[in-house]
């Protein structure tokens, strides 16, 4: 009422400009109730879709985003933050979830696991968010997991990881270890690799992965053996003694799970020692990694890695319609020089899977989402197609890419079928 009066006074004082203003305002007044009204509200009243007091109104649903935007992990997690924001923007443009626009509360995990725990609790207890997209390292996930289970929240976790976990309160949109390892090793076997040298950063993911790799090599690949297995602390930068060992053992396949900043020195020192993609190819040998994506190559430099192979489920250069649209939208939103790695794509799946799950369940309640998750599909996934398994991991394909000088991958082959996630592989117990 007061607003109208003030503006009608303005008309007589200040000509056309104000006239436009009042017209616009008038339009807004007429239009806004229509806009604000959630078209699906009758079918999905808030009282029905939100029985546990989450932060959901008739028009808005609040979600949390918990990644490191400061500290050593920020460089890796930024891609995930951007992908999730893109997905949420696209979902909002399509009309939101059950007619409700998604709003984000972002928190900084600061590359510090106790901080992750504090912020996760804040998001769940104070903000009552409907779901959380976040975490990257296993350590951060382990730090927040008890909180998600205790406070009954839902976490969409994007990173490929070691498995040995399947929580009701987590959807794992990355690959667990077997999905990435076994098919890739079979591929290396077909290329003629018979001896393998396993290299890794010293923590749970590389160790568990190598355990699975060793078991597969020794028990399932005929005539194959592991000739070395070495671990180095996170952040380690001197790989010369390791390279000497590798030269001594002459493995057909160097199988690498070196992560983070160590990658730069690892690849550069390999090159300096004469181990390059080209030199290996001449001897019919190969270098295979499951830890180097487009994001890492940006820091390492394409010419240092050209000719090496990686086994992932997604590469930016993947040739399908979904991916072309995704890459285009990503670059429009975050700049032309941004690159998209495997984890970034997995992070993009999170909000979409959550949207489809909520729509399937017809409710935002965590228990109902957890129950409805198995079987939820995302046909528009940039990696092609994914579906949630009963153990809350994704059915997805595996692919081999060859690293190119321009920092991209040439996709060589992909698995024929979707690979079943198996976070508790047999033979482990």
């Amino acid at each position, binding site marked *: 009422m007061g607003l109208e009066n003030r503006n009608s006074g303005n008309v007589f004082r200040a000509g056309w400009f104000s006239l436009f203003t009042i017209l616009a305002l008038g339009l807004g007044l007429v239009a806004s109730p229509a806009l604000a009204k959630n078209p699906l509200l009758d079918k999905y009243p808030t009282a029905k879709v939100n029985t546990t007091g989450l932060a959901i109104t008739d028009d808005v649903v609040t979600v949390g985003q918990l990644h490191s*935007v*400061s500290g050593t992990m920020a460089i890796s997690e930024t891609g995930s933050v951007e992908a999730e924001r893109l997905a949420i923007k696209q979902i909002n443009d399509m009309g939101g979830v059950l007619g409700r626009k998604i709003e984000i509360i*972002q*928190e*900084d995990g*600061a590359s*510090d*696991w*106790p*901080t992750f*725990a*504090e*912020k996760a*609790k*804040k998001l769940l*207890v*104070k903000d009552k968010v409907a779901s959380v997209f976040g975490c990257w*390292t*296993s*350590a951060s996930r*382990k*730090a927040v*997991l*008890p909180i998600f*289970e*205790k406070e009954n929240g839902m976490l969409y976790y994007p990173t490929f990881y*070691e498995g*040995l*976990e*399947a*929580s*009701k309160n987590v959807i794992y949109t990355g690959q667990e270890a077997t999905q990435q390892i076994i098919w890739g090793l079979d591929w290396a076997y077909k290329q003629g690799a018979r001896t393998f040298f396993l290299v890794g950063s*010293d*923590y*749970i993911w590389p*160790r*568990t992965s190598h*355990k699975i790799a060793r078991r597969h090599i020794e028990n399932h690949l005929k005539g194959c053996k592991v000739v070395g297995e070495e671990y180095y*602390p*996170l952040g380690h930068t001197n790989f010369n003694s390791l390279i000497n060992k590798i030269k001594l053992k002459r493995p057909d396949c160097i199988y690498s799970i070196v992560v983070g900043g160590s990658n730069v020195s690892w690849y550069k020192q390999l090159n300096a020692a004469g181990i390059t993609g080209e030199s290996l190819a001449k001897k019919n040998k190969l270098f295979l990694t499951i830890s180097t994506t487009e994001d890492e190559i940006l820091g390492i430099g394409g010419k240092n890695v050209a000719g090496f192979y990686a086994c992932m489920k997604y590469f930016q250069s993947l040739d399908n319609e979904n991916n072309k649209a995704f890459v285009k939208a990503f670059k429009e939103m975050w700049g032309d020089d941004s690159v998209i790695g495997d984890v970034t794509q997995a992070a993009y799946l999170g909000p979409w899977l959550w949207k489809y799950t909520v729509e399937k369940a017809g409710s935002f309640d965590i228990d109902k989402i957890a129950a409805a998750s198995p079987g939820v599909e995302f046909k528009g996934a940039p990696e092609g197609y994914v579906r949630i398994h009963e153990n809350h991991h994704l059915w997805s394909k595996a692919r081999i890419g060859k690293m190119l000088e321009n920092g991209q991958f040439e996709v060589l082959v992909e698995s024929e079928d979707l690979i079943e996630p198996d976070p*508790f592989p047999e033979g482990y*117990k």
Partner: protein
Amino acid sequence: MKLLESGVVSENRKHIISFIILAATLLLVFPLVFDIFRLNLVAKYLSLAFAAVGLVICWGHGGILSLGQGVFWGLGGYCLAAFLKLEAAVNIANEAGTDQIKALTTVGLPDFMDWNQITELPYIWYPFKSFPITLICVLIVPGIVAFIIGLAIFKRRVSGVYFAIITQALCWIMEILFVTRQGWTGGINGITDLRTCLGWDIRTQAAQYTLYFLTAGLLLAVILFSKKILSSKLGQLLVAIRDMEDRVRFSGYDVSNFKIFSFCLAAMISAVGGALFVLNVGFMSPKLVTIAPSIYMVIFCALGGRESLIGVVYGTLIVCFGRTYFSEQFPELWMFLMGGIFIVVTVACPKGLAGLFESHGAKALAFLKKFLKIENLASKDKKEVEA
């Protein structure tokens, strides 16, 4: 002489008043003002304040700048976390609703050992099967580490910057040790998912209230205990060593013994905080044993005033509140804001908040008293200021 005595009395009274204010803030104001989520955060901050109190003894009064206080704090935490983890591992089969049961092959063995292909409990974990022994370990393990370091360094008369650098190196060593021995320590993940302590669920709201009061109460007790030590002859000797080491040595004292004592005491006080942190937060991480938290602890003291047992508690609370508040409000910018505050405070008041209170607070108090026409007391205070 009489003047001096009355000065001491007044000094004491001032300490008592500020102690009562602190106690009232912690035990009454915070629980009334904050909800349980914030109160739990305060409990976390207060458990860090133990390390700051330890630093007041060894740095503020003893002149030994330790940049590795987080190590002792963390060792205390790890000891208790080990006990809680064993309890969780024993009870895990009884707990429904998690898939850990599936992941766990050996009941009674912590989950991370299982992931690291360790099939039997390492001997180093045996003491943590018993609660009393664990409590002793919480104090003794950091105490012994501090004693060995102190013995090796102070007996050789290494001090000052060199000592600070060595403690910094100690942080590195500890972090590498805890991260690389992951079968024994949980590696970079730390020891997570702690649920009960002697069957008492530490994650419930009621438990968190209890733990808050336990933390605040123990902190106040430790402050009183430290005050007692610092105002004894021993405390005066520490200050003497800080200000004129050679003269104390020439007077016939074995300086290194006193240094070792204050260093060990500081380590053990910190360790109590670490153990309380584990109870309040429910896990322990090698990120807490490394350099950054140790530096934070020194910042608590620098901000609160490194000679003041009570000032450092406020210093801790302000830094931690600032950290939480800024990172919630400005998740992408908060580090710059914190950095800015540290620079402003150290430039503006080099003696910390306690120093600010000393220099301006006394005047303000005197003015206030005059205003309230208690001239007799005010003049006494003035004399003390002049002295």
